[in-house]
């Protein structure tokens, strides 16, 4: 079952909409609260990343009884050095974004911690695609 959400760059007030919607869906599907928490935290971080860095983005969530797959695709500046971006504390966020309490350099590491697999591909000047998978049966 597939769900799609649009993300608007720069609008922090709306960040978290996809995460909250997916959370409601997972609760209705009786998914273990611990797994819901991991999925939602990772998705929220991903949403904030798009809002903070990109111009616009799309989130696709695909759910079956085996796993939850999330693809976060954005149009934006892209990530020149993915290894660097994966480091805890590394951030390119602007002063304004930091002032709002975001941009601590925890986004990608936090997503990695809360997902079973995380794949990033990015092309500078075009955008980034992050793919997350969380397995329901281990």
């Amino acid at each position, binding site marked *: *079952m597939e769900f799609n959400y649009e993300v608007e760059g720069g609008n922090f007030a709306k960040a*978290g909409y996809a*995460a*909250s919607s997916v*959370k*409601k*869906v997972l*609760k*209705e*599907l*009786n*998914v273990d*609260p*611990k797994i*819901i*928490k991991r999925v*939602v*935290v990772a998705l*929220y971080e991903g949403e904030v990343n798009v809002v903070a860095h990109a111009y616009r983005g799309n989130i696709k969530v695909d*759910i*079956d*009884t085996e796993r939850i797959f999330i693809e976060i695709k954005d149009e934006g500046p892209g990530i020149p050095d993915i290894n660097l971006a994966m480091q805890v504390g590394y951030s390119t966020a602007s002063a304004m974004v930091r002032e709002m309490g975001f941009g601590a350099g925890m986004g990608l590491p936090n997503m990695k911690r809360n997902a079973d697999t995380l794949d990033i591909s990015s092309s500078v000047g075009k955008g980034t695609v992050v793919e997350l998978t969380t397995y*329901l049966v281990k």
Partner: protein
Amino acid sequence: MSEQQFYHALKVDRDKCFGCVHCMNECPTDAIRIRDGIATIRKDWCIDCGECMKACPVDAIYVEQDDFDDIFRYKYRVAILPSVFIGQFSKVISVDEIIEILKGLGFTHIVPAEATVDVINEAMLEAYDSDIEKPLISTFCPSIVRLIQVRFPGLVHNIMPIKPPIDTTAIYYRKRLIDEGNNPEEIGIFYVTPCASKIATVKAPVGEDESFVDGVINMDFLYNKVYHILKNRNVAREANETDAFEYISPKALRWSLTEGESSSMKGRCLAIDEIHNVIKFLNKVENDEIINVDFIELRACDQSCAGGVLLSENRFLTVERMKKRAENLEQMQIKAKEISFDHHQYIKERLSIKPIEPRSMMGLDNDMATAIKKMERVRRIMCFLPGIDCGACGSPSCEGLARDIVLKDANLSSCVFMQRMMEKSKKLDPQHSIRIIEKTWGKDRLDKDCYKKGAKNEGN
């Protein structure tokens, strides 16, 4: 789980309810449906917050209470009285005067519900240093505990397993009376409740095996009695300042107001009142959007207990009066009744409750594969429903109806818009669609009625 666990104090008066949608639209957990022209409450979904009762235009939703005369079955009749009760009276009426009237009504002892707040506060501060997940949440407001169980099952572990003050006060006072040499069988402890949820937990405690009080009295009932006596007195009497009332600390007096708990906790604390505000906030907490918060004080009513559904006076006035009374206690340096060391220990040993278990009511099916199929059906049905959430089908929203259809509690033809479309394509006979509407809204519902609220003969 026994059936007792789902006891609810909120009841619908079938004679008064005329099946409007006010309560259904207000219910924060979507627990209400209109069937046969009457509001029906889904027991497992209801958290006893009382929003429906506040919204009802014809007072058809009421709170069940024990018979007042039940108190006379006991020789010692103790009223556990929350501070908001006295907070409703203006400052010209002294506490002693109110206590005197309450005793005249039959109580032998009046105890402030917040008498044991200091012991609880101590335990809360200890919980801060324990390994319980942060942000910590207290059990103070029973509707909040139930809300977390049914809607935020992932947050049950954040609830500190400590009794709310009214329970510890009941335990404390019963012990005191027994220690004074009284026969336990002759002691009746009655809680004067400001809300419906407290009654529900007294009748079916969450995380407890038994209740600590012998009965519950609705606060509005008692307020009316006391106010009536005050109004019918010839002269404002000088109350004799005897040992009538055991004062509590200003902190305890403010405990049931917004920021009452949060101002006495360590670390970064927030206070949120009103159920819809709480739901929005807990949503964020669950997403980890709000981090580094140590304690959140959550109350179902606006202005906390001063906004309780069984309070009679305006909640903002009540808050102001209580704050004034607390300030007066501070200024006049009135000593609060101290709990003896032994009793302090006795309460402390009985503070903890069992872990609160989740009982989510959001699942479409216990089996995930089936739940996915059901959700796919909900989403397909949503393609057809108008999406305006009018409530004319008897469900709180189009999505609610779609779920009800999938869970076999409604039909696609329950929707009045769908009915028109079905009539147009000759799939539904107009007479049949009238019968469908009558099934939701009751017979004669479509007939002219000049006596309804707002119509020309209202009140005749």
